[in-house]
């Protein structure tokens, strides 16, 4: 199985890719397979060595019964989706607010999803408010939240 992909739906790829700009537009979903190797690599990259993510014996004694992926690792899939959806503006004024509702386990394939809910005109330009989340293979939402992204002049 591939480690991950960006689903081509709902926006065609390439130069003609349509970016989300209005209410109801979907963000390009990101699908990612979370292997323990990915969790281990993330621990090193982010310098977060909490044994709940890394130590099988320790994790077995927690409420989850086994190792879980870092919340910030799984949040990165949503951030990646937002960077693709708003490539010129996400890192210049983008805002994200989420709750981690359920754990993601190594072995899970998760999907980051989002939809523009409203577009608000502000003094600095239009801002898209989006519902975003991360869905586990069993359909449960591991992360839920909102994001706000400037649309810039290319609305």
């Amino acid at each position, binding site marked *: 199985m591939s*480690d*991950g992909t*960006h689903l081509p739906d709902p926006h065609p790829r390439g130069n003609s890719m349509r970016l989300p700009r209005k209410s109801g537009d979907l963000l390009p979903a990101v699908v*990612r397979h979370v292997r323990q190797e*990915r969790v281990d*690599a*993330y621990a*090193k*990259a*982010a*310098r*977060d060595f*909490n*044994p*709940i993510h890394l130590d099988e014996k*320790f994790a077995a004694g*927690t409420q989850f019964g086994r190792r*879980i992926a*870092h*919340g*910030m*690792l799984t*949040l*990165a*899939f949503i*951030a*990646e989706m937002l*960077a*693709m959806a708003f*490539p010129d503006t*996400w*890192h*210049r*004024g*983008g*805002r*994200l*607010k*989420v*709750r*981690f509702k359920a*754990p993601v386990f190594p072995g899970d394939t998760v999907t980051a999803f989002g939809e523009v809910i409203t577009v608000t005109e502000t003094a600095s330009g239009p801002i898209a408010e989006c519902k975003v989340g991360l869905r586990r293979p069993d359909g449960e939402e591991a992360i839920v939240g909102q994001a706000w992204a400037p649309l810039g002049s290319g609305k």
Partner: protein
Amino acid sequence: MQHTLRDLSPGQKFGPYDISLSREDGAAYAAAVGDVSSPSYSGALPPLAMVATGLSRLINDLGLGAGTVHAGQEVEFIRPVSPGERLTAHAELKSNSVRRDARFATVATEFRDAGGAVVAISSSTVIVPV
């Protein structure tokens, strides 16, 4: 300086922490999360990499227990950060309370550049077993 969360009150400040991620650090982060085909950020670091690193520093400084889990996160990106750019993270405990069998704590962090301008803002809520 290592702290003990149960002894801290809202308003407690942490840091500043020096944070600087090299191009290699950014690449390692991107590879770990699988973000290899998203926009290039025009040579800047993946925005969340800096926040994740700052959070790890904070978790270590707070002496959080091994069973700590992440309950909520807010981030705001003001401007892109370049590889090698030196930032400082200034954190403050916003809330700290025990509900049922767990402690809930929220810490807000500002990431500032060498000139003192804020480049990103983060707020992290963690649950710590008690």
